[in-house]
């Protein structure tokens, strides 16, 4: 997975050190060079770059995607605000489907192993990535996670991204689909407040529908907004805790694995 950076180990500290060392050398070289030519005329020149800022992440994502295709691993990138119910959704999904095909989970959170522990309690392997200060998972991290986790062929891999509707939209992880979870305890205008994410997603799950009688959430308005941003987005309304319409989601998954 990490052919690009060459860090074929699960721990790439050595490689990082060597990169840092190289950079230090570069900086040092620049300084000594600068000192050497001090007082002389330095010619400025223009260098064309034309390179996407996400090119490195995208290259890793393509490697991950090729790996998933080769090993028939159906990978989803689950995104939402914090608290929309992604982990509960996964726990219930695993309970419903784990007898049918192997499932593995990668959990992304800034801190703690809480979510991975909840997944492990269902009997399915999970790896927790603590992103620290970072607000999203990236494709390079997923490549390493695959090496640590050892995902089986012909399985479902669910990647639960950091709860954040902004940054994860830009970072392709190599997944087959981004699935955005929006719960009815949030605003029904989230699709137009955070359009990038709803534009990037192929499926929107409207979760916690059992709470609709108690909240001021207009489902039709939410769907209208989501289709404004992304006319092709698929939508399933469900309640992960109560099981309402849950089979629509598990059928969607089962048809694709």
């Amino acid at each position, binding site marked *: 997975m990490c052919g690009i950076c060459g860090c074929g180990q699960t721990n790439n500290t050595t490689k990082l050190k060597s990169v840092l060392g190289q*950079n230090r050398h*570069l*900086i040092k070289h620049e300084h000594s060079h600068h000192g050497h030519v001090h007082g002389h005329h330095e*010619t400025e020149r*223009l260098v064309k770059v034309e390179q996407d800022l996400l090119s490195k992440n995208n290259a890793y994502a393509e490697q991950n995607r090729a790996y998933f295709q080769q090993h028939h691993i159906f990978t989803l990138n689950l995104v939402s605000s914090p608290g929309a119910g992604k982990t509960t959704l996964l726990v219930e999904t695993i309970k419903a489907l784990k007898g049918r095909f192997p499932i593995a989970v990668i959990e992304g959170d800034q801190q703690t192993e809480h979510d991975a*522990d909840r997944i492990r309690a269902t009997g399915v392997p999970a790896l927790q990535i603590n992103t620290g200060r970072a607000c999203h998972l990236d494709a390079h991290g997923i490549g390493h996670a695959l090496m640590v986790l050892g995902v089986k062929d012909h399985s479902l891999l669910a990647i639960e991204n950091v709860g954040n509707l*902004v940054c994860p939209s830009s970072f392709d992880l190599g997944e087959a689909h981004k699935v955005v979870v929006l719960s009815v305890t949030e605003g029904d205008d989230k699709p137009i407040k955070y359009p990038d994410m709803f534009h990037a997603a192929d499926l929107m799950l409207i979760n916690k529908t059992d709470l609709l009688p108690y909240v001021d959430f207009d489902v039709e308005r939410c769907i209208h907004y989501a289709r404004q941003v992304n006319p092709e987005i698929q939508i399933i309304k469900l309640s992960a805790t109560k099981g309402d319409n849950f089979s629509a989601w598990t059928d969607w998954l089962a048809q694709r694995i």
Partner: protein
Amino acid sequence: MTNLPGADLHWPEGCMAGTAMHELSLLENVREILENHALQQNFSRVTKVTLEIGKLSCVEPEALRFGFDVAMKDSLAENAELIITELNGLGLCRQCQQQIEMETLHDPCIYCGSPFVTVIQGAEMKIKDLCVI
């Protein structure tokens, strides 16, 4: 909990290069791209960086400007000037085939009202060129 699947698996520290805020992650990528180009094209200092940022990309030019000096500190682009060229959003209506200007990702076609519009310009976020010594 130790018998649970994956409980013994641990995320190797140092494998996540990200930083807070995706603009800062992107600026770290800028720095890395500059360093790679410095090795390939034999320059030791960058005095100007020109970025092309589309108005429909999820990057805030002000956040890039804010973080640029910090992200370039101690690199070959320390104290470099940052120029950001913003690109307008353009879309092609899949219904009536007209080209339209787009302010947001959810602008419908101004000619026929269709929401099926493909973005053809404005999602870019790239390093265009550099002034180097």
